[in-house]
């Protein structure tokens, strides 16, 4: 456990050095939320209908943003070699990286998600479920995205590549999270969506590190 806390402290400390921590993703999210009414039209009725879904898809896109640096920096400066040689398994290092990514980027984005949804015209009563879905889904986004980040190590145009690899795999969390919020808005059973979202995120957190470690070893070989 000691190794894990050390890894976590390192990742959390480094995350502020990685392009200003969550600021970049938050600014990106705000920009999407700003452009949306400009494209759709500002009539409240039309915007309100799509607000929860738009807030949710913006979240999925914004959580892609800082993934490129997740392994890339350690790969470039050789820290990933040291992590691979160290006593802690590479799977644990990958787990710590994604967990730190969730804490430093996913959680601030989850705080912003209800704000964006309400600004777009969603009912304020949707705020708690939007926040909960964004927080739980962020865990899945972070671990699923981490797989893409690890796979595209050493590839050309890594950032776009991550998006192309990972976005099709984001379909389940987007469906479950969007479904939970929509069901809550319609007064239906919203717990099923949230539970399925939680199941997806936990499964990704459990299985993702193995794929990431395998991809990192492949990139280092």
């Amino acid at each position, binding site marked *: 456990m000691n190794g894990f806390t050390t890894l976590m402290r390192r990742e959390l400390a480094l995350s502020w050095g990685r392009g200003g921590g969550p600021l970049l993703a938050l600014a990106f999210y705000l920009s999407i939320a700003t452009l949306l009414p400009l494209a759709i039209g500002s009539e409240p009725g039309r915007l309100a209908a799509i607000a929860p879904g738009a807030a949710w898809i913006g979240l999925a896109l914004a959580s892609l943003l800082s993934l490129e640096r997740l392994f890339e920096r350690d790969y470039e400066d050789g820290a990933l070699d040291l992590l691979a040689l160290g006593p802690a398994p590479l799977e644990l290092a990958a787990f710590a990286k994604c967990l730190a990514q969730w804490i430093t980027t996913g959680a601030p984005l989850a705080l912003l998600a209800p704000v964006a949804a309400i600004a777009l015209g969603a009912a304020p009563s949707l705020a708690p479920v939007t926040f909960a879905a964004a927080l739980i889904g962020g865990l899945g986004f972070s671990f699923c995205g981490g797989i893409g980040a690890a796979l595209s190590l050493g*590839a050309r145009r890594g950032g776009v590549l991550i998006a192309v*690899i990972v976005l099709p*795999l984001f*379909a*389940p969390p987007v*469906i479950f999270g969007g479904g939970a919020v929509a069901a809550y808005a319609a007064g239906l059973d919203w717990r099923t969506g949230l539970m399925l979202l939680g199941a997806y995120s936990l499964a990704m957190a459990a299985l993702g590190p193995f794929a990431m470690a395998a*991809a990192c070893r492949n990139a280092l070989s």
Partner: protein
Amino acid sequence: MIAALANPERFMRFSRWAAPLFGVIAVALGAVGLWLDFIAPPDYQQHYTVHIMFIHVPAAWMSLFVYGCLAGASFIGLVFRHSLADAAARAAAPLGAGFTFLALVTGSLWGKPTWGTWWVWDARLTSVLVLFLFYLGYLALQAAIDDEQRAARACAILALVGAINLPIVHFSVTWWNTLHQGSSVFRKGGPTMPPVYLEPLLILSLAYMAAFGALWLVRIRGEVWRKRANALALRAAG
């Protein structure tokens, strides 16, 4: 069978006659299936558009079958580090993307006269579209990594991640929405389709499968030759 073919020499000898054989089988079955399709009576509801089914349904089946082959080859390549399995995975991916694209396009052409719309966001359509996007991501990853062996291993990891994820995608999309008719061939109590349609459909499916076998073998042979040519070029240069 697979263990015996793991030897590249033996594989090349086998595929030399197996690939054309599969091709001939594909053409023969395709001709018979299309003939049975043409003489089949028009459907009482769908009229002549039912003929699209014979192109569409086998392509949709193949899109999943090829993914199964891709994942299997990736698993063998990743676990046993076999270069021929890597070549097989590399050769299968564009074919799978092609079948998926064919299924999407014919489905869209079929949807217009029967549903009145080119595209609906229904569960099966959406999950096939996600499968197509996933194939594209796989091909993009393959193209973006220069080192061939490293690219093959990264792609193999991605293929296995996809093998776990695609059923979840399918389940989630089904949970989300459904309009596409259920399967009328694979269901409890036997197929509900009349034999006059079922027979050409199954024959054409076998034709598709044989065509895939032929193209796959040819592409794997191409991969093996390309590797040999690269090795020869390196030796000549150095």
